[in-house]
């Protein structure tokens, strides 16, 4: 049945996250923007126990599943199971946190994208070895390293290599990765890890690309640069160089075998991570969008300007039309996001819906925040308010996890039934 009601449990948790955002993020938002590279330690320490609980729960579930499989039980048929709400909850958490501050949200410790990759394709041994750290001790981070100076979305061109040293049974990584979100925290400042995409056979192009887990402090992995950015300044974005970096054989995720050359079979599995992560990036964008719209409406209200819904077009002011356009764009993107998220929870393929919501959310939040600066004028161009910062923060959503154009390209290929040869 078509239904837009959130389960009560998520409503409650969403309300709680919104409170945290208001109380712990907003007050430090401006400071961390002005002082790039500083970390919100109080906030990190506050969130860490929450992260630990969630990670412990997920790890326990993975253990149970593995035990059941080992005992020869058939996994329950997905259709019979009640749909999970894990992603729905996560999307609401991210939306609420990004309403607080999108850069600070990215500082939340835990597995993040790197952890997701292991959860998606890792063996139970790998999950134990790499994810247990998020359930104990000091805050830790994980990061995902894909992009290189030469190429981002053109992943087939990845230059980083992983060579198997058969004598020691180790992978030897070489190459340079850039734009690694939380890379500093994951690779150097905590006992975290980085999931690195590298090729085991460059002539096999996409089929040769595998992902590897490199733990913090591994010799040969070095953070070489911390970027200075337009927005989300509380979050670190770094370059990492791998130089004869040796990791155990078992740190490869999925099968290390290269399937038939020039096919994309193995690669498609890797790309699946994006189907899960893109709606969550969209959710982050929507948090910024909601923050902006709320601020615009409150500011106008204080000035005695009411937005009158329901009037015929000719009676609306230009300002009203702008605000309504912002709200409609927000609604459109948020509903597309919820659809992609709920399909994930229902374990249905969502590649097209995932790219649709990411493309739409990136565009919508860019438009909404830029429009807000225009509407409220000189008042909010000033750094006294957060609107100008939200506009700068927002832009990242149309860039990372695939630019708006790449996501549009994915949607186009899917609706046309075209591959990369038919539609470049």
């Amino acid at each position, binding site marked *: *049945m*078509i*239904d*837009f*009601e*959130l*389960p009560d449990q998520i409503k409650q948790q969403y309300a709680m996250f919104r409170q945290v955002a208001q109380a712990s993020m907003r007050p430090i938002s401006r400071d961390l923007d002005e002082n790039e590279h500083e970390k919100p330690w109080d906030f990190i320490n506050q969130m860490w126990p929450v992260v630990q609980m969630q990670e412990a729960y997920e790890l326990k579930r993975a253990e149970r599943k593995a035990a059941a499989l080992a005992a020869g039980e058939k996994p329950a048929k997905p259709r019979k199971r009640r*749909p999970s*709400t894990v992603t*729905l909850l996560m999307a609401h958490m991210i939306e609420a946190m990004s309403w607080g501050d999108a850069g600070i949200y990215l500082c939340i410790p835990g597995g993040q994208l790197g952890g997701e990759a292991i959860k998606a394709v890792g063996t139970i041994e790998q999950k134990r070895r790499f994810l247990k750290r998020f359930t104990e001790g000091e805050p830790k981070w994980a990061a995902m390293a894909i992009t290189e100076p030469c190429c981002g979305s053109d992943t087939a061109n990845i230059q980083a290599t992983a060579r198997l040293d058969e004598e020691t049974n180790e992978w030897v990584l070489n190459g340079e990765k850039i734009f690694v979100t939380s890379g500093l925290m994951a690779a150097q400042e905590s006992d975290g890890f980085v999931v690195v995409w590298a090729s085991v056979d460059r002539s096999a192009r996409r089929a040769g690309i595998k992902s590897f887990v490199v733990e913090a402090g591994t010799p040969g992995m070095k953070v070489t640069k911390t970027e200075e950015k337009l927005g989300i300044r509380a979050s670190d974005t770094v370059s990492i160089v791998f130089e004869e970096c040796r990791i155990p054989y078992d740190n490869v995720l999925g099968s290390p075998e290269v399937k038939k050359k020039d096919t994309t079979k193995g690669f498609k599995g890797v790309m699946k991570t994006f189907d899960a992560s893109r709606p969550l990036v969209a959710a982050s964008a929507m948090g910024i969008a909601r923050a902006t719209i709320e601020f615009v409406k409150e500011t106008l209200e204080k000035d005695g300007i009411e937005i009158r*819904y*329901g*009037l*015929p*077009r*000719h*009676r609306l002011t230009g300002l009203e039309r702008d605000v*309504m*356009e912002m*709200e*409609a764009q927000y*609604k*459109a*993107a948020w*509903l*597309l996001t*919820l*659809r992609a998220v*709920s*399909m994930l929870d229902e374990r249905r393929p969502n590649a097209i*819906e995932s790219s*649709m919501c990411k*493309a*739409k959310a990136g565009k919508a939040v860019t438009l909404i925040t830029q429009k807000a600066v225009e509407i409220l004028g000189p008042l909010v161009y000033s750094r006294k308010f957060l609107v100008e910062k939200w506009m700068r923060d927002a832009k990242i959503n149309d860039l990372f996890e695939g630019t708006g*154009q790449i996501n*549009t*390209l994915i*949607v*186009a*290929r899917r*609706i*046309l039934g*075209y591959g990369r040869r*038919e*539609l*470049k």
Partner: protein
Amino acid sequence: MISFEPTEEQQMLIGAVRRFADKEMRPVYRDFDEEGEIPQNLVQKGWELGLTAAGIPEEYEGFAEERSVVTGALYAEELAWGDLAITMHLLAPGLAAYPILLCGTTEQKESYLPQFCEDEFKSATAALIEPTIRFDPAALKTTATLDGDEYVLNGNKAYVLLAETADLILVYAAEDGATQGFLVERGTEGLEVGDREKHMGIKALATYELALNDCRIPRASRLGGEAGCDLGQLMTLSRIATSALAVGVARASYEYALAYAKEREAFGEPIASRQAIAFMLADMAVDIDATRLMVWEAAWRMDQGKDAAKEAYLAKMFADEMVLRVTDGGVQVLGGYGYIREFPVELWLRNGRGFATFDGLAMV
């Protein structure tokens, strides 16, 4: 729990309506547009889908166990995908029936609603729009004045669907400045059906100007009796229906353009292999899906008894612009052929432009 899946019953209904749209509407809609007429036998066939009666409860001889605006939005999209003019003709009786159902007095419901559940198409309509660029449903120029036991209606209306054949017209008029509905039966003195209007699109649909010159009706014909009607709720319902129609029209154009772009070759490959074309199609797909979800959300809110006024209004604004963008894109993808009437996309563009002016012209 959040879900975007129609129920099995709804899916069956969508299937039936889609078959009708595909088999009965698609083969003939172009001719109807050229000729400006919709043959009665097709209207009758469409009526037999029982869509209007499906929204009327059993106590009034309909077969709605539970009236659902979501279901209405679902079938409205499918019908409009077939053809907008035929759809608006088929749904016109709902313009009188649903306001009676929602706001009518017991007598009004008992006397009128069963008529909409009969086997024969029941021609009925509403008169809301007025022939002025400053038309505002909440500030009508047409007036209703109480005179003893009668209301006297005066004013001019436009876009009155099926006015010439309608047995019942729900006329909206300002009573002491507030919009109320008045049930005017065919043949009432002072009710003058004017000329058939000629529009840019929906050319097969018969719409008329209407003049009310001291048109007297019994006091009991005020919709909802003493309590009257809530215009806001009716406008919300209409905005949901109209937006769902816009999604259907947009989808028709998008699907045609998509198929064409894969067939048509230029420079040795299908034009869909160029990002300039492929990105237009992708944007259309995103726009259409987004609008549909907005329509569903507003419809769901109505079904839940929640306030849906703002959601429906924003959905309508978004849908009006979306359907123009998408149908214009449809013409653009076809290039010069898109301008030729042998191809359907120009018709969808003409219909698509209409949505910004369609206020209160459909209900589900």
